[in-house]
């Protein structure tokens, strides 16, 4: 049986190679296939929150402004240009003309006004609406002819352009409502649990350099597939042509089998981090709270961890040591001056000894003589994270610290992190999908719920947390990008210095792109592979299956 399977695969590959040799197989038409993890929860672009729904929104929706996933800069889409005035409270758009919705109804400023009315309707509970709703007061729109519209916010919103990347314009007139779209594709068919099919939008406005109407593809099919091993298998069989996330093992396996198809897009926005519980009311012994609240303890632990080994052994080299909260993949906001805490176990020990800790017979004791031992909670089922924990356990053992690794199911872990505070240290991953620091207010403000190490403080408990609060608020109201950058750089420096989070590694963005796909280049930002769906091309289907 295995022989048969091999021979079939071999034949397929031969056919594929033959197809590639024909040369002119790339062109108009064809179907692109990839996998998504679940059924979309909604097809209403204003309600999308889960990954699958956002995929639908990205492929079908048109926006005024896009964040170019490769350059991370704003590019005009349905808006030809825009201007921010009145101290950042007004944004005036000049709209593209002659654009039609997929059902043929024309696009105008009225549709933008209608979209705003709908998204800001409190009864809709739109997540996109929530991100626009910075403070009290109403958002007003003013239509000045079919191609001009001004949006007025009650208060200045720094970096407001990025919010328009999420705002899909819906038609005010089309009888098909949200199903009339402005993006490159329209929703074709949804078979729950099986696939979502998208068809080419014949009225899509964009043209390529040669003046051909985009998109090139006839259809895109997103298969619903949860099993990553199966996904890779289907990729190898040519049944899907893109894989947006591969774990290091599968990536290496694919690299070995077909080197050209495994793509490493460098550092991603995902990082792994460790933090200590600094909550004053946590049910922990006082001496442990004292360790966790001591900067020297945290920094010593940090420099006892060999981040290079974490990358090499836990991720097979497909990760970089992390320096701070912002991954290098976020080119706009990363503080490039920061480097990862250096691995120096002897210096770490010395630092602890200066604080009264002592190493006796291989066991570290605090100034009161307590054995330094703590538990590291993490979610179970994540292989790389389990390896990180085992590596850190060994690293810390070298300076006499006993670490107990406790894998917990996710709900229990969240319960401990956010409600009972019954944990000592925690190892988790973090993804910053939104590049702008404003999206991280809920982490950095000491009053915030996601201020994980010590959430919901009434007043900042430490001077450095007060300083972070001040800087975050300053950057959120400053309009000058340089000032914002300076403030956020300082936040990153403080976090590096005080180490409330010990940043460990930034994972690489690992993906797979079939040779039959043209113009696909993976990037760190979501959606990693099909961020330019209108330009994607596949080898001629006829040639491939013949």
């Amino acid at each position, binding site marked *: 049986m295995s022989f048969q399977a091999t021979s079939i695969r071999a034949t397929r590959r031969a056919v594929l190679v033959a197809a590639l040799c024909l040369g002119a197989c790339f062109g108009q038409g064809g179907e692109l296939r990839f996998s998504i993890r679940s059924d979309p929860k909604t097809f209403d672009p204003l309600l999308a929150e889960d990954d699958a729904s956002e995929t639908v929104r990205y492929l079908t929706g048109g926006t005024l402004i896009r964040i170019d996933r490769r350059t991370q800069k704003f590019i005009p889409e349905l808006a030809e240009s825009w201007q921010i005035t009145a101290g950042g409270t007004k944004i005036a758009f000049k709209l593209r003309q002659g654009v039609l919705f997929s059902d043929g109804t024309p696009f105008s400023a009225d549709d933008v006004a209608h979209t705003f009315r709908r998204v800001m309707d409190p009864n809709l509970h739109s997540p996109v609406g929530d991100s626009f709703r910075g403070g009290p007061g109403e958002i007003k729109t003013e239509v000045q002819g079919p191609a001009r519209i001004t949006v007025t916010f009650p208060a200045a919103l720094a970096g407001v352009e990025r919010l328009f990347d999420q705002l899909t314009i819906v038609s005010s007139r089309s009888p098909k409502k949200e199903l009339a779209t402005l993006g490159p594709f329209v929703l074709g068919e949804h078979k729950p649990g099986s696939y979502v099919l998208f068809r080419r939008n014949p009225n899509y406005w964009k043209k390529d350099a040669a003046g051909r109407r985009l998109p090139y593809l006839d259809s895109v099919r997103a298969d619903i597939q949860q099993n990553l091993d199966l996904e890779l298998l289907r990729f190898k069989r040519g049944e899907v042509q893109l894989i947006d996330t591969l774990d290091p093992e599968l990536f290496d396996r694919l690299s070995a089998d077909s080197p050209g198809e495994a793509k490493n897009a460098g550092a991603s926005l995902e990082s792994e981090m460790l933090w200590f519980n600094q909550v004053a009311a946590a049910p922990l012994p006082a001496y442990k709270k004292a360790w966790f609240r001591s900067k020297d303890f945290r920094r010593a632990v940090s420099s006892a961890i060999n981040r290079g080994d974490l990358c090499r052994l836990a991720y097979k080299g497909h990760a970089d040591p992390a320096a701070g909260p912002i991954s290098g993949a976020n080119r706009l906001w990363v503080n490039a001056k920061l480097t990862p805490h250096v691995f120096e176990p002897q210096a770490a020990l010395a630092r602890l000894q200066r604080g009264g800790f002592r190493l006796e017979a291989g066991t570290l004791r605090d100034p009161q003589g307590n054995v330094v031992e703590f538990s590291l909670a993490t979610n179970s089922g994540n292989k790389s994270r389990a390896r990180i924990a085992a590596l850190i356990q060994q690293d810390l053992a070298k300076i006499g610290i006993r670490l*107990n690794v406790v894998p917990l199911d996710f709900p229990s872990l969240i319960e401990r992190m956010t409600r009972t505070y019954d944990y000592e240290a925690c190892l988790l991953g973090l993804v910053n999908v939104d590049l702008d620091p404003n999206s991280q207010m809920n982490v950095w403000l000491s009053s915030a719920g996601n201020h994980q190490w010590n959430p919901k403080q009434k007043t900042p408990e430490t001077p450095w947390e007060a300083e972070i609060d001040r800087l975050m608020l300053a950057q959120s109201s400053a309009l000058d990008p340089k000032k914002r950058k300076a403030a956020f750089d300082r936040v990153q420096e403080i976090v590096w210095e005080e180490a409330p989070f010990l940043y460990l590694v930034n994972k690489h963005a690992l993906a797979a792109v079939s040779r039959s796909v043209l113009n696909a280049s993976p990037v760190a930002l979501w959606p990693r592979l099909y961020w330019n769906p209108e330009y994607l091309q596949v080898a001629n289907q006829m040639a491939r299956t013949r």
Partner: protein
Amino acid sequence: MTTAAKVAGVLLLVVTATSLAAGLLSPVSYETQFRESPNAPPCRQFPLGTDELGRDRLARLLYGSRVSLLLAPAAAGLSVALSALIGITAGYAGGWVERATMAAADLFVSLPWLFLLLTVRALLPLNVTPWASILITFLLLGVLSWAPGARVIRAGASALKRSEFALLARASGCPKPRLLWKHILPNLRPLMAAQFWIAIPVFILSEANLGMLGLGIAEPLPSWGGLLAELQDPGRVGGNPVLLAPAVLLTVFLSCLQFVFSKEDQ
């Protein structure tokens, strides 16, 4: 004893002895990470190669054997003892006791285990030493798995209670406790032995699943369950047949056990 049983017995002794003498046989500890040689193929320094963190697979297999070999049978024994106690009581008492016990067993089998285990994890402190965590794990496995066995043993006890020889024993004036001890219990032995043999591999594997809830055997201690869990990824095994070593050892161990002890039972 047949030759096969003798061979099996010797093999069993060898496996047990090597796992007990793991410290002597393996020059390195199960937790030492040779970080410069992860995923090493078998060589002179590492006869079975190393795992992805550069830990000696042979040392991990030997120590893992020690953990699993001692504790899985102990937990199986505990489980069978509980099953027997409950099953025999139910089968012998009959009437409402029997019905109530079996209803309880049905309920127990259908309980949402996940939530119960999560509660147990929540009640335990986070800082437990690996050895304590092993003990808790197998205690849990033993205590929680009484129900299916109890059902089987109850059926057996109930049939034995109605048997001709039990009736004759009653007719001879044998007191009830004595009847239980001398006439019913010895005849349930094969049934209990079967339960015991079935439980051992199940427990060895369930231990690995408990790890998902933070209950199983914690890093860096190895166990057969943990080592076998690596086999779940078929793509890796293909490239490295050494990964099959724990599966082979488990199979050999269980077949030997069956061979030696089931022969003695007859």
